[in-house]
């Protein structure tokens, strides 16, 4: 059929059939995009095609894995020795800190038991390795080598040694995709450690930072302030470092302050990450605080007759 076109008018060919076909395919693509946008078909197709897609990811990840192996194999000895030395020192320091923290943690545990709260400091984590694959989309995503078969579910927070990296947005049978906190479509509820101000950190447009676009003008936020996860929203457990404020300036509208935040996690370089397994709390606002006091079992026997605590207030409506 192509030869027919050659014969007819090779230089200025404008056949209607081609245009019609183009329109057909473009329309098909647009319909697909809209359906996908509405129903999230992409994940389902990827799930269905996982048997084909995952080997492709592994294959595409090979060069990066190879480079890592090569850099270890041919890395000069001095560099490796230095690295080893540094890691030893880090480990020593971390262990020393841990030993000191253990006593505090135990005390904390005890006090919390007294207060009858169930939050524990222990982490239920799973180690995962980053597969070096370029996922396009301005690359604010990572691929991990664990998936649904290892118990990974969408929504799980991902951290590294320094702070929060992001959350799982998709899990295939043996791989999963992580959206980084620096993705412009990502938002994470944070609290300023120094002042306790709660706000939301979004990924910045440039893609390697976070922004706090809605700080009230009167609020006290300074460069150098540390941000922690606040635990609101129930997705990220509270208390993990998110980043450090580098710059505060009034917004263009003049109604808010805008702060630039350097992420705490080593977003570009982490090869090994941790997946948190316990989802902090179910979605929705946190349960209303219980009245403080020791648990009722510890109360003296005669007090049991008296109405101990008022009935819990009804759930907060949004």
């Amino acid at each position, binding site marked *: 059929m192509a030869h027919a076109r050659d014969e007819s008018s090779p*230089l200025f060919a404008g056949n209607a059939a081609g245009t019609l076909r183009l329109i057909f*395919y473009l329309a098909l693509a647009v319909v697909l*995009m809209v359906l996908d946008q509405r129903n999230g078909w*992409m994940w389902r197709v990827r799930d269905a095609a996982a048997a084909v897609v995952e080997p492709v*990811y592994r294959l595409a990840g090979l060069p*990066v894995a190879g480079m890592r192996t090569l850099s270890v194999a041919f890395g000069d000895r001095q560099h490796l020795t230095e690295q080893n030395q540094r890691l030893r020192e880090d480990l020593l320091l971390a262990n020393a800190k841990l030993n000191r923290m253990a006593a505090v943690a135990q005390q904390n545990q005890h006090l919390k038991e007294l207060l009858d709260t169930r939050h524990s400091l222990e982490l239920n984590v799973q180690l995962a390795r980053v597969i070096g694959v*370029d996922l396009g989309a*301005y690359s604010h995503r990572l691929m991990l080598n664990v998936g649904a078969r290892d118990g990974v579910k969408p929504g799980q927070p991902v951290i590294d040694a320094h702070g929060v990296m992001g959350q799982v947005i998709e899990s295939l049978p043996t791989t999963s995709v992580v959206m980084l906190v620096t993705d412009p479509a990502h938002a994470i509820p944070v609290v300023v450690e120094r002042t306790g101000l709660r706000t939301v950190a979004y990924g910045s447009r440039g893609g390697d930072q976070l922004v706090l676009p809605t700080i009230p003008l009167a609020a006290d936020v300074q460069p150098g302030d540390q941000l922690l996860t606040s635990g609101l929203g129930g997705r990220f457990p509270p208390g993990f470092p998110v980043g450090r404020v580098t710059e505060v300036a009034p917004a263009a509208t003049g109604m808010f302050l805008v702060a630039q935040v350097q992420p705490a996690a080593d977003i570009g370089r982490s090869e090994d990450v941790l997946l948190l397994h316990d989802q902090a709390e179910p979605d929705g606002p946190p349960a209303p605080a219980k009245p403080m006091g020791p648990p009722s079992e510890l109360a003296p026997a005669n007090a049991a007759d008296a109405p101990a605590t008022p009935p819990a207030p009804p759930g907060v409506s949004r």
Partner: protein
Amino acid sequence: MNRQSLMRWWFTATLVVALLLMLVPLPGPLAPFKPYWPALVLLYWSLESEDRVTLGLAFAVGLGADVVNGVVLGEQALRLCALVFIALRFRSRLRFFPMWQQSLAVLVLLLNDRVLLLLVRFLGGASLPPASWWIAPFVGAALWPFLFLLLDDLRARWRIQ
């Protein structure tokens, strides 16, 4: 294996390798320089062997690219379809351009592709990409002569049509 099936294998292999190359990341600072490989390879084939490359094939390759690496299903299918359509439409002229002119044409095609992508992303509600995002088409156009000569040379060496 006869020449015909060898050719078919080679054709498929280049497309698969292009998809893989698209997935392989470049180290951090070089990342924006990565050309859009599937577009380049499809362009080569649409210039050199017209009857193999059809809009349907471009659509299929785009869908494949979308499944392995993409934000929205159908996005790359749309882009590659538009690209191949333009290339096929001007094929007879593009083929006889001198190399530098051909590279310029490729640059325009790739820039057009970026604009399409921008449009799709914009309608999808994504934010504007950084300026470095526009480097890739230039790299693609600069690589075009080498890719073209390499693929042509291999084809001539193996005597496949």
